[in-house]
């Protein structure tokens, strides 16, 4: 349906009174539009992701770049093919497929065989997005869901982290034994011992991990950038980090260290920060209201800890976000903000009129006081 047919439906009734010719310029108010479109939002996310990738490629070499390239290209390709097959426009120029591809790649270690990003892109674009009707109708974040499915299918390879700076073959799926890292900071932190890497290394991201998700510093910078550009509101990441820290103290951790220090290690060493900044804030699958967003973020923090403590899963944050994704619609339902003038169900009108101090009266107008019309 083209804009013109839509307009003709809207303004069909104008035909009889107007000049007889349909005027496509008669759209309803408002007549100006913010320059920020979907593509701009996606572009902001791409810009925010770029430093993470540059750093990831610096750490893990050209293979990281190849994985990213394959992932993005496949996401765009599969999305276009599926859209054509489903009778939609071939490729909506909203850059969402590029973002999906980038997030998918960022959540993988550089050591994965190159058919992983292809499979992941297929899951993301078709199984978790296309069949639901495209952007805006997917119930879960496609890139994250695809990544978690890959983790279920190939757990060994998805957690095969390599040391920063290790030489990796460009295309071969065989990774030399020497490159494989045996000290993963998150695994150490979760098991209750202080990671062998220093806190500074972990903070700037000089650790084994996924392509995009190692550097807490760059992720916090990206979050600040996106919040400043108003691409998303920082409610979700802030609520998630706060609840993670709070419940981290409540749950406690293994022997030796105080639980506050260990919670900080857990917070910055795994994929938690990346996931809450780039996956949990996905507008499509998060609640719209501010209260809903805060509950959603807090739920992610809590569920991540529960999964880390009570299951074998190391990260937990992926499943936590997927679970909260599915709940986001319900969260919106239960947390509708009060609208202007709505009466509180119990307290009546929440606001009482403030009477001006000198109460206006209806006394007759005083004589003598005059206003001088000129």
């Amino acid at each position, binding site marked *: 349906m083209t804009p013109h047919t839509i307009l003709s439906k809207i303004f069909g009734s104008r035909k009889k009174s107007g*000049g007889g010719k349909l*005027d496509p310029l008669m759209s309803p*108010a408002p007549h100006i539009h913010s320059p920020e479109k979907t593509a701009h939002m996606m572009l902001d996310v791409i810009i925010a992701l770029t430093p993470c990738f540059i750093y990831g490629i610096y750490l893990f070499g050209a293979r990281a770049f190849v994985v990213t390239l394959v992932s993005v290209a496949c996401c765009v390709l599969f999305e276009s093919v599926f859209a054509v097959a489903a009778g939609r426009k071939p490729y909506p120029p909203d850059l969402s497929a590029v973002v999906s591809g980038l997030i998918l790649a960022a959540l993988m270690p550089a050591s994965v065989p190159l058919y992983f990003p292809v499979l992941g892109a297929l899951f993301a674009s078709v199984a978790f997005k296309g069949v639901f009707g495209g952007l805006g109708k997917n119930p879960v974040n496609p890139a994250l869901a695809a990544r978690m499915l890959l983790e279920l299918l190939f757990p060994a390879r998805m957690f095969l982290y390599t040391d920063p700076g290790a030489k990796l073959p460009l295309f071969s799926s065989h990774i030399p034994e020497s490159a494989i890292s045996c000290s993963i900071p998150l695994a150490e932190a979760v098991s209750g011992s202080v990671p062998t890497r220093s806190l500074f290394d972990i903070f700037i991201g000089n650790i084994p991990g996924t392509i995009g998700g190692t550097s807490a510093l760059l992720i916090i910078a990206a979050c600040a950038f996106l919040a400043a550009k108003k691409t998303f509101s920082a409610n979700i990441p802030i609520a998630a980090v706060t609840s993670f820290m709070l419940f981290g103290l409540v749950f406690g951790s293994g022997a030796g260290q105080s639980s506050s220090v260990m919670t900080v290690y857990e917070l910055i060493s795994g994929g938690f920060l990346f996931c809450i900044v780039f996956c949990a804030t996905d*507008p499509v*699958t998060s609640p719209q209201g501010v209260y809903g967003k805060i509950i959603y973020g807090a739920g992610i923090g809590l569920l991540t800890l529960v999964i880390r403590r009570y299951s074998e899963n190391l990260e937990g944050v992926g499943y936590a976000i997927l679970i909260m994704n599915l709940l986001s619609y319900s969260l919106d339902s239960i947390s509708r903000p009060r*609208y*202007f003038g709505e009466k509180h169900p119990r307290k009546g009108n929440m606001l009482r009129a403030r009477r001006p101090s000198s109460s*206006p009266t209806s006394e007759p107008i005083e004589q003598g006081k005059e206003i001088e019309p000129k």
Partner: protein
Amino acid sequence: MAYIFGGGIPNDAMGSSVSDDIIGVAAGRSVFFRIPRDSYRILVSEDDRVDLGTRIAKSSKFELSGVYSSVSGRVEQIVDEGENVLIKIENDGFDRVSPLVRPFEGSPANAPREELLSAIRRAAIACRDGVMLHARLAAAMSPDAHLIINAAENEPGLRVRRSLLFRNLGGIVRGAEIIMRTLGVERADMAVSFCRGPLSKKLSDGEHIRDSIKVHFIPTEYPFDHPRLVAARILGVEIGPREEPEQRGIAVVGAEDCAAVYDAFCTGLPALNRTVSLVGDCIKRPCTVTVPIGTSFRDIADSCGGFFKKPHRIIDGSPMTGVATDSLDSFVSPSCVAMTVLSQKYDFAPSSENADGCLNCGKCADVCPVGIVPSLSVKFSGVTLSDEPAPVPERKLSGRGKGYFMSSLACIECGCCSYVCPAEIPLTPLMKKAKSKAKGECPT
């Protein structure tokens, strides 16, 4: 204190490099009046001679008033348009004042309130929303009435009130005093968009504004100049969707209406001129002009330097709330605020006729000044822009969905949600439909 809702959009979306001068523009060769047939009786016929201030139509309803000729000349044509009658008056350029026009006798300070109200009714001043000023004041008359002078104006492009504050503050204050006497109140509040520099100094130095008027500065985001939001900010009263400010005894009167009241009391002429802003990227010299009511947009544009781009869309009113019109032959109505002429750059077609392309991003909820989540309200109400039934069969709404649907009643139709929507969904027209549907379902 009232809970202040956030939201709003910056008021500089149309640029802000406009001067604060008001340029007087004379009427063109003819002026036009469109008069609803069922509420007015036409008093002139073709070829009649009319003067400045001659009544050409009158209404027996109290909430309406007369229609007065804003030029002197000859009734050239009376066109039957079905519901409306279009009267075209040829301007002879002499501006003869009708002999029936008399200035207000005596001082407004001594006159009884009923007399002041009927004088305001004779002045036929239309507020921005189309309600006549005297009807608004009469509805707000109560023992605890309160007057708010709304001199705040945050809509992108509009400079009417700011220019009036600069050029005619005395008129606004004296008009406000007449209105205060009419309402029987001793104090009034004045809302002004936050400003710096000479205007702020002028408003706070105590020389120009009497003690009876208290100036409040409100944020400059659009649409915090909306009467309901201004009342909430100044008086701490939230006026719900089912009532009007007047029912609570609150009269929110625009600054331009105050100035018009003062003019009418001084000259005895009804409101024949209107101060309108010229907005848009096509207009060579965006400015604020005072024109006789009924002047065509073409005449205004010609006297203000014309266009430097090909006009693509002509809007009667402001860019955010105006009504698109066919051509430059539209004319200044008694409640007109602006003439907006936009180029091809602003061509905007709705992406869909319902909220199908919604990304759930919540930007509409972020900017909504009355706390609605427009995308969910539209989805739950199941409205589309076309008259066809919604593609999804309607479900009976229960509890929560109904809450979202009913919240559309509070919509003030400011246009912010459509403005920010990254998926370009026509949310404001959809909200209007949802609102009327909700009103139909729950007519209280």
